[in-house]
Structure formats: C-alpha cells, structure tokens
C-alpha cells in the first residue's frame, strides 16, 4: 500500500518529519518498506498484514497516525442523499444472492463533462502508482485509495435497460474487460449484468463496452460489498489482478461504503459538473456490534508491564474504540466496524502494546520448571552423524520431493510411493522411498566438478504408503566413489573404495551405538550385501552396477552405496554403557597363517573357531590377507590372530598348546585350509 505524507495530512495533523513518521509506523506494525521524496510530497510504501484491510486506505493509515502521535482524526461531513426505491422505473437493482453481495448501492449522476482530472488529483494518483485515465475514472480510483472502498462508474447510456443485476455468470458467457482481455466466465464467477449482457466481473474489473469515455454524459456509480471468497476464486480462475479485487478479497468495511460513495459524488459534481438524481441501494448496512471486557490485570499478566488506565483509554480511543469503565479496573470496549479483526481481550492487549511500542515492554527471563524430555531418536542420529564425520564423511542434504524418474532409477516399478497432489514441477512428483538416488545424483554432480574422491552421507526421512496410510522414518545412506590417495612414509597408497569400506563404516556405526548382534550376508545377485541385526534385514551395501550408474551419467567409475533403516537400527541400539573389570592376568596371542579356498566364507570360519576356542579364546581377528605370486590359483592367504586369556590365572604355553592345536584342526578338517 502506498500513501503520501500530504494526503495523510488531509485527515490528521502531523508535526513530525516523514522519516520519523516512517519509523513510528514501522514500530507500530505498519512496516514502511520504502520512503521516497516526490516534489513537495513524500511517498510511503507500507506492508499491510492480512488482518488489517482497513490499512488499505489513506483514512485507515491516518487513524494509526492519529493514535501514534496523539492527534485527532478529522471527520468529513457530507450532505445527506435520500435513497429512493424504484423511482419512475428509471433504475432497478436486483441482487440474486445476498451472500455473494451483501450490499449494493448505485447513484445516477447526469449531465457530466468528462475531461482530465485536476492536477492535484492526478499527481496524488500517480504518486501511489495509479495511471490517470479521465476525470471520472480517476475520481473513483482516488476514492478507492482514500477510503479503501472500490467504486466503479458505468456509462449509463451504454447500459441496456435501466436495471442492474448482480448474478452468477452463465457457463461460457464472455466479457472483454477494460484491460482489453477477453474472458470466458462460468457459474463460479459473480458478475454485474444489465438486461442483456455482463457489464463487469463483480469486484474485479469493468467491461470495455460500458467504460466511461470522453463522450459519456450520464453515469451509474457503483459502491458495493462482495463476498471476499468469491472474488478471490474468480480472480485466481481468471488470472486477473486489480486494486479493487485486492481490497474486496480482504474484506470491506460496510460502513465506509456510503461515505466513499458520497465523497465520489461530491468530487464528480465539483469536477465533472453533473448532478446526482437518483441514489438507490439494496442490502444491509449494519455490521455486528461487539463489546469486549478488558481487565487491567490481564494486560499486565500478558505483557509483563503495568499500564495506566488513562494510557489504555487514550490509545484505544484514538484507534476508534469506544471505552467505558465497567467495574473497578475493568473496561467495556466497543469494537468499531472497521476492526473486524478484534474479537477478544488479547487482541485489545496487542493494540495497546503496539501503539505503546514493544520497546516499552521490559525484558525478563521466564521462571519455569520445564520437563526435560529427551528425543532418543534425535540424540542417536546426532551420534551417528558425528561418528561418520569423524570417519571422514561429508554430510549432504538433498530434496525429499523428487521426480518420478529419479525415484525409478534405482527401484523401477516400486510400489508404495506417496504422490504429491499439486506438484509445482516434475521435480516434485513423489516423496522418496530411499535416499540412495539422491546421493548418486550428488556423486554425479561432484564428478562433473572434477572431484575425484567423493565420500558423502545423508540422514533423512523416507516415506511410503501402506494400506493407504502414510509411513515415514529415518534412513541413513552412504555413497563412496573414487580412489583416495593416502601418503604414508613408505610412499603413496592408492585406496580404491569398495564394499569393504562401507562395511567398515557401517560396522563402526553399529558397534558405537551399542548394537552387538549384527552381520553381513552376501545376497544372491552378488552385487549387494544385506545388513542384519538379530536376523532382521535393516539395509544393504551395494556396488552400483554399470547400467544403473549410466542412468546417473556416471561412467567408468566405481560407486558403492549403503542404505540402512535408522528407525530399525535405533530400536536395537543400547546406549546404556556398563563397566567390565579390567583383566587381572595377561593373555597370549597366537597367529595362524593359512591358505584357504577362494570360495570359503571367512565369516563361517571365524564363527567355528570362536565356538571351538571357548572359554579362553577372547578374540579372533583377520590380521593379514593376501593374494599373489606365492599363493596358488583358487586360494587366498590369510593370517588369523587368536588371543587367549583366562580370568583365573596366567595361562602357560603348555595349557594353550592343545587348544590352539584343536582350532587348527577344525580349520583343516572343516574348511580344508593348508597351514603355511
């Protein structure tokens, strides 16, 4: 909303500079987003919040200035015009549904001369960004800005039949509006019609046919109230914008309608030289009167500052509220029609605080005994993220809404995706069911930026439909790509990522969140490895196949991805830590170097050794792994390190020897290994 300094002065005395006024308005909730000098005048651009349609007028803003500066608002007086009913058949108004149009008034002004509007009026209109058309149209626009009531003038000579019908448009009815656009209407659109045709899209824009021109002699001046919703829907449907629709959508003060219409009539008679011969209206003028009790104690309880009765009365009085003492420290406040937004005590308290200035309210800290609730999921997610960052990974954040195409890249034909009813573009068609695609997209983009080593992870929600119910839960995904060059003292080691890197990362996460019983199982397709906790599959490790990589425009690269359900992982997590006394006796380590068949599953072998080694065998680790010249084809070389310890005494060589020999025997007999 734009308003000028001098225009405000028509309604209220202002003794402060425009800059100071702008500051005060901003701090009272009318944020001045720009203030520009314009000749003798100043233009304020004010952001109007949706609850204050009364601020869409010079009068409305002047009322705020009056409250802020403590100066009285000027009242205009108009000569009363007598409304007539169906006078000699010259004009009839037919409002078909009062819900669509609670109030419709029309004045017929005859014998006008249309010309340019006077300079003062045109200049003000131009300052608030409204183009000058001709004297009559300019006057209706001037009053629109001044009072916030949109008016429309029809060329009476071009109306067919002397009746105005406010009705819904028929399917396919057409109109060319004054902006030259042709519009096809329908029953959801409210129109103003004469005997034969639509002459205006109600509350939005008039028709070209009945537009006031320089040859117009007589006019019909419309001032009405239309249902905000029907105006908004019609505007959206027709894709139109107008100052008029903007105000109708936010709600019109019915009490201002007549004043605005009188103001326009007066200006037209003064400038255009015509004479109002008929004034007619249909509908209710009355709005609901509301009285609210305001308790002084409540003001203090909510604001944290005690404010005197006199101060409260003054502020509310200037804003147009009528205040009368009800009981001791309780005021009866009557709400004016232009303040439909005020409905309860708290609303009045805001008015008091706003005009007083929020700066006047002290700064305190609350005395509260809050309950401490710990969001276990959130704490564990933070832990998981920190572990992965410590392991060198970078966190990414990708979109949860993705295109159907991206969603299908890794999981073609997957069911249970939740679809968006109103996507803005193809990129937002579905909610993702997994994170991996988003990460592969990130990998691809980073490869394009010539990154040769990419290690990223994301923790975010995934979504699915289950029996028409929605399900959401956190997943963790990791993607690795490329060769990490590591420079050690003995020289450069080129470490190409693979499934084992994922295994290491996932194992660290699992063990650090306190999960003991997990395992990894090769899956049938050979590309992926399942991750299990207590025999439940919670995710997978995957070397992404070449075909799938090509869908992401990744060529000649190895990419591995892990995706786990964090919800299921966190359900198993044990955060409780328990101290185990330190061992009293030292242990002994024995290594076994062996050759095994390529196809032997190491995990099974380790499990068998662990079983056999009870109770002294405390740990079995693979400490070396090799293939190469010394190893016969079809075999792999391993070193297994066994750690023996007793809680009762220091074990001797002689005690360990038979047990270790038994382990070796198991390896030889059950797994056919050759000891080296």
């Amino acid at each position, binding site marked *: 909303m734009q308003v000028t300094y001098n225009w405000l002065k028509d309604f209220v005395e202002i003794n402060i500079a425009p800059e100071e006024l702008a500051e005060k308005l901003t701090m009272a*909730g009318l*944020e001045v*987003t720009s203030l520009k000098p314009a000749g003798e005048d100043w233009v304020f651009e004010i952001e109007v*919040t949706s609850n204050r349609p009364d601020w869409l007028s010079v009068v409305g803003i002047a009322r705020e200035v009056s409250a802020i500066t403590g100066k009285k608002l000027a009242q205009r007086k108009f000569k009363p015009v007598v409304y007539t009913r169906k006078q000699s058949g010259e004009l009839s108004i037919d409002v078909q549904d009062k819900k669509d149009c609670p109030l419709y008034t029309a004045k017929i002004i005859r014998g006008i001369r249309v010309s340019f509007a006077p300079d003062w009026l045109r200049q003000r209109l131009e300052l608030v960004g409204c183009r000058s058309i001709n004297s009559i149209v300019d006057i209706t626009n001037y009053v629109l800005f001044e009072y916030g009531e949109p008016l429309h003038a029809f060329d009476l000579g071009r109306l067919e039949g002397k009746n105005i019908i406010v009705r819904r448009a028929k399917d396919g009815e057409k109109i060319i509006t004054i902006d030259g656009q042709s519009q096809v209407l329908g029953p959801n659109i409210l129109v103003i019609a004469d005997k034969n045709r639509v002459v205006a899209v109600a509350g939005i824009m008039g028709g070209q046919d009945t537009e006031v021109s320089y040859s117009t002699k007589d006019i019909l001046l419309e001032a009405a109230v239309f249902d905000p*919703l029907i105006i908004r829907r019609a505007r959206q449907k027709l894709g139109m914008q107008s100052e008029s629709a903007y105000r109708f959508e936010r709600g019109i003060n019915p009490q201002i309608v007549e004043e605005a219409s009188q103001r326009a009539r007066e200006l037209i008679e003064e400038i255009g030289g015509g004479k109002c011969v008929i004034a007619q209206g249909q509908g209710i003028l009355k709005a609901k009167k509301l009285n609210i009790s305001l308790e002084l104690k409540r003001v203090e*309880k*909510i*604001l*944290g*500052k005690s404010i005197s009765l006199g101060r409260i009365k003054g502020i509310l009085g200037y804003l147009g509220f009528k205040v009368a003492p009800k009981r001791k420290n309780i005021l009866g406040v009557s709400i004016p029609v232009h303040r439909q937004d005020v409905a309860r005590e*708290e*609303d009045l*308290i*805001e008015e008091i*605080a*706003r005009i007083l200035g929020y700066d006047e*309210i002290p700064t*305190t800290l*609350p*005395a*509260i005994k*809050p*309950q401490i609730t710990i*969001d276990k999921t*959130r704490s564990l997610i*933070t832990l998981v*993220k920190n572990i992965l*960052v*410590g392991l*060198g*990974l*970078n*966190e*990414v*954040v*990708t*979109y*949860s*809404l993705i295109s159907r195409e991206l969603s299908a890249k890794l999981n073609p034909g997957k069911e249970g995706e*939740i*679809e*968006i*009813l*109103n*996507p*803005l573009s193809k990129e937002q068609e579905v*909610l993702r069911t997994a994170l991996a695609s988003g990460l592969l997209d990130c990998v691809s*983009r980073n490869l394009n*930026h010539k*990154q040769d080593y*990419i*290690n*990223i992870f994301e923790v*975010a*929600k995934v*979504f699915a*439909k289950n029996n028409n*119910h929605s399900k*959401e839960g956190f997943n963790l995904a990791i993607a690795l790509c490329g060769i990490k060059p590591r*420079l050690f003292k003995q020289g450069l080691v080129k470490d190409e990522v693979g499934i084992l890197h994922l295994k290491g990362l996932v194992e660290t996460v699992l063990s650090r969140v306190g999960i003991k019983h997990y395992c990894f199982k090769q899956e049938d397709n050979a590309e992926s490895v399942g991750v299990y906790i207590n025999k439940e599959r919670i995710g997978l490790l995957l070397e992404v196949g070449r075909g799938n990589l090509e869908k992401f425009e990744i060529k000649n690269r190895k990419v591995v991805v892990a995706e786990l359900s964090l919800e299921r992982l966190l359900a198993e997590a044990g955060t409780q830590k328990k101290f185990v006394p330190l061992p009293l006796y030292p242990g002994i380590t024995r290594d076994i170097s062996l050759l095994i068949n390529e196809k032997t599953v190491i995990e099974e072998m380790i499990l068998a050794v662990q079983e056999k080694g009870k109770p002294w065998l405390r740990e079995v680790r693979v400490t070396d792994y090799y293939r190469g010249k010394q190893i016969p084809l079809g075999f792999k070389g391993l070193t297994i390190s066994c750690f023996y310890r007793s809680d009762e005494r220091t074990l001797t060589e002689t005690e360990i020897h038979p047990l270790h020999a038994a382990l070796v025997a198991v390896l030889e007999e059950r797994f056919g290994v050759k000891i080296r």
Partner: protein
Amino acid sequence: MSGVNIKAIQEQAEQEINSVNSLQALEALRVKYLGRKGIVVELTGLIPSLPIEERKIFGQQFNALKNKLTDLFAGKEKGLAEIKISEGNARVDIGLPGIVQDLGRLHPLTQVIEEICDILTRLGFSVVEGPEIETEYNNFTGLNIPLEHPSRDVFDTFYLKLSDPDCRTRNLLLRSQTSPMQVRMMKAHKPPLAVAAPGKVYRPDAVDASHSFMFHQIEGFMVDRDIKFSDLKGVLELLAKAIFGQGIKMRFRPHFFPFTEPSAEIDISCIICQGKGCSVCSRKGWLEILGSGMIHPNVFRNVGYDPKKYTGFAFGLGIERIAMLKFGIDDIRLFFENDLRFLSQF
C-alpha cells in the same frame, strides 16, 4: 691362490660395510656375505677340491674371515642403531604432509540447527522432532488458521494423494511450517512446557536464489501459568545475541500471525553493513530474522488448555536464512546442490 681369494673378500666386505648407512642395507649386506647362500658359505664348497694339507690352513682362514665379518656387522649394527636414536627426529622431513584420518563435515544447515538447539537446550528447552507428513488440522486448523486462509491454497501447501485417517475428506499434506509441533506437543503433554522443534518444511515455491520448495525451520515455545511477553523478549534477545554476537541491536516489531496474539517480528541490525543500509538488508539497516508472539487463546482451546490459566510464547525461525546471513551465502540453492567445494568450507 686360495689365500688371495679370502683376503680380497675380506677387503671388499670391509669396504662395503663401512659405506652402508641404514640397518636395512646392512641386513642385505649380511645376507650377501653370511647368509645361507652367501659368499662366505659358498667358500666351503671349495674344500673338497683342495689338497688335504691345504685344507687345514684354509679352514683357519675361513673361520678367521667369518669371525671378522661377524664382528664387523655387529659393530656396524650397533653404530647405526645409536645414530638412529640420537638423530631419529632430525631424519623426518617435517615439510611432508602429516599422516592423519581426514575429518568430514556436517552440512552447514545441520551446524546451524545444532548451534541453535544447543543454546535453547541451555535455556531449558527440550529438543524434539516431529513428522513431516501432517494433517490439515495440525498444520492449520489447530493453529487458528481459518479454513479459507490463503496459506491453505494449493499454491502455498503441498497436498498428498492420501487422505487423513481422521478426516477422510481432507488430504494429508507436507507441513508448511514447524508450528504443528505446538499442537502435537501440547496435546500430548501438560504445562510447563519448553520445546524446540527443528525440521524440514515444504512450500510450492519456484526455486531461485532465495526460494526453495524444501527448507528448514525451528519452532520454539514455552507454556506455563505465568509466561509473559517480556519473557519472550528476554529469551529471544539471548538467542539472537548468542547466534549473531553480543554487539547486535534488536527491535521487536508488531506483526500478524494467526496463531499468536500479540505477535512480533524480530529484526537485528544488519550484520553486513552494521545498520548503515546495504543490498542484503534492502537499505533498511535491519534484517528480519524471526516471527514470534504470545500463543493465541484459540490455539490453547484447540489443544485443551484453559487460556485463562496458561499463557505462553512461540517463535519460529528459518534456518537457511540464518545460515545465509551467518556465513554470507547469497544463493539458497547451494545448500541442496551439495558441491563438496561448498560443503568443505564449513
């Protein structure tokens, strides 16, 4: 003839041992001379070809050589080990890169969320997260947003092709704000409450340098018998100064939100131009950082609290905006492109 041989071998060995300066090279040399297939051992292979009378002399010479070399190796090894201990540190070229496991980074949005949640936790707030799929009731109705409010339009909220189990005629939606957590938490708990709820929110905005259809917010609220607007000012002043520094100026400006009354927007003096006016603050000298207010009595009624008994405040802030201001980032899209060159700066 054989005597010359042995002497030559000894001289050669002595020379080579002297010129060696690492333990590894010394070991290699030891293998060369004294190893199982070393030069010295090979000499024994000559014995059968010698006349009987020469064999004794050869044996003596052979033993002398072996002992001599063994002593030389032992002496040299001791010398090298001493050098290693005394000069060990000097031998590392500290100009070489250090050997270390790389540290990754949390996303800058996570960093800002954690920073704000930490501050709020210290003020007594509990941090909780809620679902991203919401009902129209929690996202709008419960928050006193009227049925015909423009924010409910399909232009402003993503709706799902899935209906609300509690209200079959209404579709579920992606929350357009974190405020529904007020409704959820208040329905589930009795006051006193102090809650901070970070998370993703969604709005159908066309993506450009300052808009994204997915972004992050933190909702904070506190409810008890005696929470006042002055408390809201106190808490938010602490929060803003903890985030942006003690030197900033703040102002509380009246505004309108359907779920608070009175409502306030909070501005801080522009951290780029210190309030002089620049392009970041649109020449205003002030930056809007969050919306807040006293929780509307209708919201209390909707969750079953008595508005005469309880009061409370709530605030919501946009993480991307705070992060952009804090780090001087000028394009919101950078957060979601995840370019490692971007991520590695935080």
